[in-house]
C-alpha cells in the first residue's frame, strides 16, 4: 500500500511538472535573449484551447499539437513584434496578451457550449513505456509510465543546455541577452535572435498548455491554466536561469502539485482549498531562497533595444 502511494505520487509529480517544464523552457529561452515573456500564462491557455479544438475537429491528437504550435507561433510573433519592434514595456504587453487570450479562449468555449458542439476528446495521448516495466516499484511509473510529451520536453531541456553552452549560436544568443549593442557590433543580428527566441518561447508554452487538454483532461475549461505560467516564471527564478536548475525547480513544483492532488483524493480532512494553495506558497518560499542581485539574469533582460538609438 505504502509503496503504491509513493509510486503514484512520484509518477504524478513528473506528469504534473510537464506543463511547468514546457512553459519554463519557453520563458528561459526568451529571458536568455533579453526579453521577458510575461504572456506565458495566456499562451498556455491558448495552447490548451487550440490544441483541444484542433484535436476535436480532426479527431487526431497530433493535429491538436500542431494546432497549439500554430497558435504559439502566431502569438509569439505578435509578442515579439510589439515588444521588440516598438520597444515598449514587456510587462504590460504580456499582461495585455494574457487578458486577450483569456477572452478569446473563454469566448470560443462559451460559444461551443451553447451550441453543444463541445465534447470530450475520445482518446488521450497514452503512456509509452511497456506495461511490464511500469510495474517496477517506485521507479516504474516514474520513468516508464510517462507520456511522449514528457519525454520530449526532457530531451528538449538537454538540447537547450547543450545549445546554450557548447554552440556558437548559443553563445550569440547569450550575447544578445547580455549586451545587444556589442552583439550587434560583432555582426550578430539582434532582432533575428530575439524574434526567434520569443516565437520559440511561445510555441513551447502553448505545447505545455496543450499537454493539459490532450493528456490530462479531455476537454477545455475556462482559465484552466490557473497560474501555471506564473509558476513557470518562478521556477526560472528559482533555477537561477540555468537549464538544470529550472528543470529541477519544475519537478519541485510538479511534486507540490501532486501532493496537493493527493491531499484532495485521499480526503485527509484537510480542506481542498489548502491543498490547492500548496504550489503557490511553495513558489513564494522558493523566491526567498534566490539571494543575490543578479541571480544569473542577463544584463540586458527586460530592456528594450532599439536600433536607431
Amino acid at each position, binding site marked *: 500500500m505504502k509503496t503504491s502511494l509513493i509510486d503514484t505520487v512520484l509518477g504524478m509529480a513528473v506528469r504534473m511538472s510537464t506543463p511547468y517544464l514546457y512553459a519554463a523552457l519557453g520563458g528561459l529561452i526568451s529571458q536568455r535573449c533579453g526579453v521577458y515573456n510575461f504572456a506565458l500564462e495566456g499562451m498556455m491557455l491558448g495552447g490548451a484551447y487550440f490544441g483541444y479544438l484542433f484535436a476535436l475537429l480532426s479527431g487526431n491528437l497530433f493535429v491538436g499539437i500542431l494546432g497549439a504550435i500554430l497558435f504559439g507561433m502566431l502569438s509569439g510573433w505578435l509578442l515579439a513584434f510589439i515588444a521588440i519592434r516598438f520597444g515598449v514595456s514587456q510587462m504590460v504587453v504580456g499582461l495585455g496578451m494574457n487578458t*486577450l487570450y483569456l477572452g478569446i*479562449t473563454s469566448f470560443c468555449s462559451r460559444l461551443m457550449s451553447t451550441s453543444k458542439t463541445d465534447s470530450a476528446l475520445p482518446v488521450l495521448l497514452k503512456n509509452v513505456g511497456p506495461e511490464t516495466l511500469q510495474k517496477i516499484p517506485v521507479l516504474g511509473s516514474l520513468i516508464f509510465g510517462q507520456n511522449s510529451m514528457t519525454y520530449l520536453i526532457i530531451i528538449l531541456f538537454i538540447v537547450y543546455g547543450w545549445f546554450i553552452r557548447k554552440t556558437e549560436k548559443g553563445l550569440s544568443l547569450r550575447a544578445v541577452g547580455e549586451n545587444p549593442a556589442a552583439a550587434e557590433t560583432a555582426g550578430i543580428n539582434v532582432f533575428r535572435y530575439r524574434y526567434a527566441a520569443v516565437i520559440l518561447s511561445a510555441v513551447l508554452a502553448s505545447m505545455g498548455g496543450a499537454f493539459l487538454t490532450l493528456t490530462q483532461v479531455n476537454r477545455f475549461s475556462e482559465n484552466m491554466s490557473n497560474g501555471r505560467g506564473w*509558476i513557470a516564471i518562478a521556477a526560472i527564478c528559482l533555477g537561477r536561469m540555468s537549464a538544470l536548475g529550472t528543470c529541477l525547480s519544475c519537478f519541485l513544483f510538479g511534486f507540490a502539485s501532486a501532493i496537493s492532488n493527493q491531499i484532495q483524493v485521499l480526503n485527509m480532512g484537510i480542506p481542498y482549498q489548502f491543498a490547492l494553495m500548496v504550489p503557490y506558497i511553495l513558489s*513564494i518560499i522558493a523566491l526567498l531562497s534566490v539571494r543575490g542581485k543578479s541571480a544569473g539574469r542577463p544584463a540586458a533582460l527586460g530592456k528594450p533595444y532599439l536600433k536607431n538609438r
Partner: protein
Amino acid sequence: MHREKFKSFLQKRSFLITGGMAILAIFIAMVVGGILIFMIGINPFAAYQSFFRGIFGSVYGFGETMNKFTPLLCCALSFSLAQKSGFFNLGSEGQLYMGALCSVLMASHLSDMPAVPAIFFSVLAGIFGGAALSLVAGILKILFDANELLTTMMLNYIMTYIIALLVSGAMKDPQSAMEQTASVPANTRLPSVLTDSRLHAGLFIALAVLILVWFLHQRTVRGFEMRLSGINPKSAHYAGVNEKRALIIAIIVSGALSGLGGSLELLGNQYKLMDGFSNNFGFDGIGIAVMGQYNPIGILLSAFLFAALRIGTSSMQRSMKVPTPLLYILQGIIIIAVIVSNYYVRRIKDSLVEGRPVG
C-alpha cells in the same frame, strides 16, 4: 506658417495626441469586437446599441456603471502609485479581497453602532487589510530581494483560495445554501445617492481619494521622494532620500488603495463576500493605469471606460446573447493598442520638439 502654429499648439497640448491615440485604440477594439460579433451570427449594430443602452440608457444602468467605476479607480490608483515608486504591484486583486474580508469581519461586529462610525471603522479595516497584504510582498522584496511581480501574483491565487475556504466553511452564512457570508448589517452599508439606481456613496470616497493621492504624490516631500526612488533608487539615495522608507510607504499606500476598493465594493454594492466577488477588478486596474498614462485625469477617464465596458458587455450578453468574455478581448486589444500607440506618441513628440517632420 500655418504648420508652425499647429506644431506649437500640439506641443503645448500633448494630451491631445495621447487622447487621440487612446480613442483610436478604443475604436480598433470596438471594430474587432464588432467583427467577432458578426462572425458568430449576431447583428453587431444591434449588439452595440444594446451595449450603449446598457450604460447610458437608464439611470439604473448609469448607477451600475459608476458602481463598477469605484473599485476600478481604486485599483488603478493602487497600481499606478506603486509603479511610479518602482514597485510592480500585480497583487491588487488579492489585496482587494483582503480589504473586503477585513471589512466584512469588522462590519459584522458593528451592528449596534450609529451608521457613520460603523462605516468609518469598516472601511478602515479594509484599508488596513489591503495594506497588510501588500506589505507582505514589500517585506519579501526589501529583505529577500524577492521579485514582487511573482510574489504579488502568487498572493492573489493564495488569497482567492483563502476566500473560497472561508466562505464555504468558517464564515459561511448558515441561513443560505450558497457559499457566501451573511450580508453586512444595514447600518454599515454605504447609502445610495441617486434615486432609481443602486449608485452608492463610495464613488465620492474614491474620487476624494484620487485627489488625495495626486496631492500626496505631486505636492508633498514624501511623494517627491517616492517618484525619485521610482525613477532611480541609487541616485535618490545619493541625493539623501531614504529610498527604502519611500518604497515602503508607497507599498503600504498602494495596498491600502486596493483594500479600499474591496471595502467600498462590499459595503456599497455586494454586501456579502463570496467566491468570484472581485471578478478581475485588480487586473483591470493595471490596464486602466497603463491606458491613463499613470496620470490622474487619464486614469479617471480610463476607469470610466473599463467600467462602461463591463456594463456594456453584460448588457449585450443579456439582450443579444453575446458571450461576456468579449469583455476581456476588448480590454486586451485596448491595452495592447495603447501601449503600441505610446511608441508613436513618443515619436510624434520628439519630432515636434526637434522640428523634424512628423513620420
